[in-house]
C-alpha cells in the first residue's frame, strides 16, 4: 500500500521535467499564434498600414449600417466614420432630425440638422462656416454630404474640422458615397425578407376554396347521422384553418407541421372514407426540428390530389420523417398517376402553369433558407406515383421555431 507523500524525490524531479516539457509544447505555439494575430499590424509599409486601418474601420461600421439609417445604427457607426475621416467631429442626420453626433464640442449638435438642411434639400455637398465664440473650438467648418438611396436623399453626413481642406471635402464625399452603398444593401436585405414573407403569405392565402367547400360538405353529411363526429370534425377544421392562417413566424416545429397535416388528412378521409389510405412513419427524434412554416402541407395536398382525385378508385399517401445524422429527411409519397419528370422540372423552375404553385414555392423557400443543396427532390414517372423528399438540417444558424 502506498500513500501520497513523496514531495521531493528523483521521480518528482522527472515529473517536473515532463510537466515543463509539456508546458513548453503548449505555450510556444500559443505565443507564436498570438504574435501572428496581434502583430499583424506591424508588418508592411506605412501606406499598407493606412489602407488596412481604413478598411478595418469601414468593415466595423458596415454591420450597423446594414440595418438601415436608424438612430441606433447611426450611433454605432458614427465613431468609426469619424476615425475614417480623421475629423474633429461627425454628425449623421436623416431627413427629419439629427441621429448621432460623435466627437468634440457636442454643444454644436443642436444646430447640426439646420446645417445639413441645404444639402438635404438639393442633394449637393455644401461647405459652411460654423459660428463659435470659443477660440479653441476645433469645430469651425462643416462639410455636409448627402446620403442617397436610389435617387432619393435619405440623410446627410457632416464632418466638422478647423479648416475645410480639399482633402477633407473629398474624403467626406467618398465616405458619404460608401455609406449610401451600405444603405442600399440594407434596403436590398429588407426587400429580400419582404419577398420571403410575401411567399409565405401567398401560400397562406392558398388554402384551396375547393378544400374548404369539400370539407364543409363532408362535415354536413355527418350532422344528422353522427353529430358527435361532425362536431369533432368542425373543431379539427377550425384548428386547421387557424394554423394555416397564423400570421407570425417564418418557422415552426416539425411536430406542429405534422399535426396540421394530420388534421388535413382527417378531414380528407371524412370525405373519401376508405378510398384514402394514410401511412405516417415518424421518428420521434426529429419532431422538435425547426422547419419553414407550411413546408409540408402543400406537398401533402398535392399527394392527395394526385393520388385520388384523378378518378382512380383508391390511393395511399405515405409521409415519412427520419433521422439522418445531422439532418432530418422527410418524404411525401403517393401511388397515384405520377407525372412527366419534364413537367415537374418546369414547375420547379417556375415556368409551368399555376396549378402546382405550392411545390415551387416550398422549393424556393427551402433553397432560400438552407442553400441550394436543400431543394425538393421529386421522383416521379407517368403511372408510377410521385415521391417528394426534402432534407432539413436539424440546426441552422438563425432558424428557430416560434
Amino acid at each position: 500500500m502506498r500513500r501520497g507523500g513523496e514531495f521531493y524525490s528523483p521521480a518528482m524531479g522527472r515529473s517536473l521535467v515532463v510537466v515543463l516539457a509539456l508546458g513548453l509544447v503548449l505555450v510556444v505555439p500559443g505565443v507564436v499564434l498570438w504574435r501572428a494575430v496581434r502583430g499583424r499590424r506591424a508588418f508592411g509599409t506605412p501606406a499598407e498600414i493606412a489602407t488596412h486601418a481604413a478598411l478595418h474601420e469601414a468593415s466595423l461600421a458596415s454591420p450597423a449600417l446594414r440595418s438601415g439609417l436608424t438612430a441606433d445604427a447611426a450611433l454605432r457607426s458614427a465613431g468609426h466614420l469619424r476615425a475614417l475621416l480623421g475629423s474633429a467631429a461627425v454628425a449623421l442626420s436623416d431627413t427629419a432630425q439629427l441621429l448621432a453626433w460623435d466627437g468634440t464640442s457636442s454643444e454644436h449638435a443642436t444646430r447640426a440638422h439646420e446645417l445639413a438642411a441645404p444639402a438635404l434639400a438639393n442633394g449637393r455637398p455644401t461647405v459652411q462656416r460654423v459660428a463659435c465664440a470659443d477660440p479653441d473650438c476645433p469645430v469651425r467648418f462643416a462639410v455636409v454630404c448627402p446620403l442617397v438611396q436610389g435617387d432619393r436623399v435619405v440623410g446627410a453626413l457632416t464632418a466638422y474640422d478647423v479648416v475645410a481642406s480639399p482633402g477633407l471635402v473629398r474624403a467626406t464625399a467618398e465616405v458619404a458615397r460608401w455609406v449610401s452603398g451600405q444603405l442600399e444593401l440594407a434596403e436590398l436585405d429588407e426587400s429580400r425578407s419582404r419577398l420571403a414573407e410575401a411567399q409565405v403569405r401567398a401560400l397562406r392565402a392558398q388554402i384551396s376554396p375547393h378544400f374548404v367547400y369539400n370539407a364543409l360538405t363532408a362535415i354536413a353529411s355527418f350532422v344528422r347521422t353522427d353529430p358527435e363526429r361532425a362536431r369533432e370534425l368542425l373543431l379539427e377544421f377550425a384548428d386547421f384553418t387557424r394554423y394555416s392562417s397564423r400570421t407570425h413566424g417564418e418557422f415552426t416545429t416539425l411536430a406542429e407541421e405534422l399535426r396540421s397535416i394530420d388534421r388535413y388528412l382527417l378531414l380528407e378521409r371524412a370525405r373519401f372514407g376508405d378510398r384514402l389510405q394514410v401511412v405516417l412513419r415518424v421518428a420521434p427524434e426529429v419532431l422538435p426540428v425547426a422547419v419553414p412554416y407550411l413546408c409540408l402541407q402543400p406537398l401533402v395536398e398535392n399527394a392527395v390530389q394526385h393520388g385520388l382525385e384523378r378518378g382512380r378508385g383508391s390511393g395511399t399517401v405515405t409521409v415519412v420523417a427520419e433521422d439522418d445524422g445531422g439532418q432530418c429527411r422527410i418524404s411525401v409519397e403517393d401511388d397515384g398517376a405520377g407525372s412527366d419528370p419534364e413537367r415537374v422540372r418546369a414547375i420547379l423552375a417556375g415556368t409551368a402553369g399555376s396549378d402546382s404553385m405550392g411545390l415551387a414555392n416550398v422549393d424556393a423557400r427551402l433553397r432560400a433558407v438552407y442553400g441550394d443543396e436543400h431543394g425538393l427532390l421529386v421522383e416521379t414517372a407517368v403511372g408510377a406515383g410521385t415521391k417528394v423528399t426534402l432534407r432539413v438540417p436539424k440546426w441552422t444558424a438563425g432558424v428557430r421555431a416560434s
Partner: protein
Amino acid sequence: MSAPFDILAVAAVVLLTLGIGFYGLRLARTTSDFMVASRAVSPLWNASAISGEYLSAASFLGIAGLVFAYGADMLWYPVGFVAGYLVLLLLVAAPLRRSGAYTVPDFAEARLASPAVRRLASLFVVVIGLLYLVPQLQGAGLTLRATTGAPVEVGAMLVAVVVTVNVAGGGMRSATFVQAFQYWLKLTAISVPALFLALAWQGDGTPDLAGPAGPVFRDTTSVRLDSPVRVEVLEPVVVEVTGSGPRVLAAGEQVLPEGTVVFPAGAAVPHIDRIEAATGDTWASPLAGAGGLEHPLYATYALVLATFLGTMGLPHVLVRFYTNPDGPAARRTTLVVLGLLGTFYLVPTLYGALGRLYTPELLLTGRTDAVVLALPRALIGGIGGQLLEALLVAGAFAAFLSTSSGLLVSTAGVLVQDVLRGTVRDFRRAAVVAAAVALALALAASSLPIGQVVGLAFAMAASTFCPLLVLGIWWRGLTPPGAAAGLIVGGGLSTAAVLSTLTGLADRGWPAALLAQPAAWTVPTAFAVMVAVSWATADRVPPDVGRTMLVLHAPEALGLNRPR
C-alpha cells in the same frame, strides 16, 4: 474452448439489433397512433433509450474489472457515471434544449456566432467520439476471446462492421426504440446471472468477501497463458507446468512461460506485475490504494471531476434529450434515467467482489475485464453456467452495439457537416471512415483496461465541452477567443495526457497519477483560460448576448424566446 451458446447469443443480439433497426419503423402506423406518439415518447421509454445508449462496455465489463482489481475506490466510476446526468440536468439540459442546438458545435455557433469556435468544437466531438469508440471495440474483442477463444481482432471487427452496416444502412433512423430495447436487454443480462451467482455464493456458505487474507486458489486450478507473464509471487509455491513438470516458484518476481500452469488448492495467487496484491480488507477500504494505485486521494478527486463533468460533453448524450416534447418532460426523463442507471450500476460491483473469491486467476493473467464473463462457469458450471454466460455475452454485445451506434451516428454527422466539408458529402462514407479509424486505434491500443480508456474520454470531454457549455450558458462574458483558447488548452492538455498514458511515458509516481487522471488539473485550467482570455478580449462579447441568454433561460411558456 468452443462455446455454441455464446456464438448463438452474439448472433441473436446482432440480428435483433439489425432487425429492429430496419423493420421496427416499417410497421405502418395509423394517424391516430401518430398523434399519441407525437405528443410524447413517454419519459420511461425515452429514459430507457438514453440509458440503453449510455451503458457501454465500460459499464458492463469495465467497472466490474476495475473493482475486482483495484477495490473500493473504483466505486466512484459507477457513481460518477450516474451523477454526470445530475450535473447535466442541473446546469445544461433545459437551457440547451431551449437553444435548439442539437450538438455542441451547434451550441457554440448559436451562442458565440463564431464559425471558428464551431469548427474547433467539431474537431473535439470527433476526437472524443473516436476515443470513446475504441474501448467498445476492444471490449467486443475481449469478450469473444474470453468466451470462444477467438483472437481479439475478430470481436472488434465484428462489432465495427455490424455497427457500420447498421448506421450507414439507415438502421438507426429511429434509434429510440432500438436503444430502449437494448437497456432492458442489458439489465436482464447482467442481473439474472448476478442473482444466480449470489445464490451459489450463499450455497457455498457465504465465504468472506473482504477478509484479512489475499486472494487464494480455492481448488487446484490450471491457468492457461497465451504468452509469458511477469508475476509477483508472494509465498513460495510448487506448480505443475505442462511439458516441464513440477517447478518451485520462489517469492519475488518470476516469469511464467506460455502454456498451462497448475496451482495447488490454497496457494496464494501470484499477481501480474502491474496489479499489486491486496488483502481483503485493504481491497474493501476506500483510499487504501489497493492493486497498487498510487496517490489514491488525488486519483479519486480527479475521477469524480472527470465523470461528473464529462457526461455532458459526450457526443451521443445531448442528442437524446431532443426526443422530449418539452422542458418538464426532459426533467422527468432525467429523473427516470437516474433511477434506471442507478439500478444497473448496483450489479457490476457484485461481480467484482465475487471475482476475488472464484476467479482469482484473472489477477495472474491480468485479464481483469473478463471477470463478469468468467464467473458463471467458475461458480456454477455445467449447462447452467454456460447458459448464464451466454446471457452475459448477449448483454455485453448489446452494450457494444448500442453505444457504438450512437457514437458513430454523432461522430459521422459532425464529420460530414463540419470537418470533412467538401471532401466527404456523404453520411455513409463518413460513417465508414470513422469506424475504420476507431477500429485501427482499438487494435493498436488493445492492452489497456477498458475502464481506463473510457475514463480518459470522460476527462477530455470534461476539459473541453464542460467549460464551453457551463460558461456559455451561465456567463454572458464569454467571448469567441476565450472559448477557443479554453478549448485548445483544455483539449491540448488532456490530449497530451491521453497520449502519454497510452504510450506509457510515465509509469510511476506523481507523473503517472497526474497523467492517468488528468481531469483535476486540466478542467480548472480550461475554465481559467476561458475566463481569463474572455476578460482580456471583453470587446468581443457577441452584441446580441442578451437575447441569446433570454432564449436560453426564459421558460418556454412565457413565449419570450421567439426570434426577434
